[in-house]
């Protein structure tokens, strides 16, 4: 069965510093991996995905994620955080049937 884990409930980072939001997964076969962001009282917005190809995936708003098969991880990163990046971030596995992680709340302080 597919599963995804986000080990951190919350990540705090100062504006301008790099940020990492962690995600690990468990799938049989090749994984389809996604990151979504959710702003307060808003729907989920697609950030980026890994299907195949380069392990470093670039997405919206300056975010990127690195697929690491040996560590079964797909951490979300951004070189320089903005206050406006503060939101709830969900890692997800699958495509036709998507399983979401529990979410990580990112707080970026000015």
């Amino acid at each position: 069965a597919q599963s995804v884990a986000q080990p951190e409930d919350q990540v705090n980072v100062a504006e301008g510093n790099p940020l990492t939001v962690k995600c690990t997964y468990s799938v049989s076969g090749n994984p389809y991996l996604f990151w979504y962001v959710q702003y307060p009282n808003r729907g989920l917005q697609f950030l980026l995905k890994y299907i195949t190809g380069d392990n470093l995936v670039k997405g919206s708003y300056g975010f990127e994620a690195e697929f690491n098969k040996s560590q079964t991880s797909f951490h979300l990163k951004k070189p320089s955080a903005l206050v406006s990046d503060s939101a709830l971030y969900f890692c997800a596995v699958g495509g036709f049937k998507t399983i979401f992680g529990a979410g990580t709340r990112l707080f970026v302080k000015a």
Partner: protein
Amino acid sequence: AAGVIQSPRHLIKEKRETATLKCYPIPRHDTVYWYQQGPGQDPQFLISFYEKMQSDKGSIPDRFSAQQFSDYHSELNMSSLELGDSALYFCASMTRNDGEETQYFGPGTRLLVL
């Protein structure tokens, strides 16, 4: 670009009432998913449809039913509502024809059961 449309955006019902939520996918998308997100929870998959047929079923209660119509819009019917049904209900759409494997989400319908 056109996005997924959900209606209504907000809905207040009383216990034991019924509710119908509607989802209009992105044009040319053939697949619709329904998710339930409780307060502070991650989205839970309920049910999905591909080409108007149910394609997968998740944690959807027996009191709920759904269908996809000929124009690809979908409706989630909820009966005998319970307080615990209060949640944000998301619809997402996707097409299986371009290899994108990406679901695009609507803004959600916030249901409050009193």
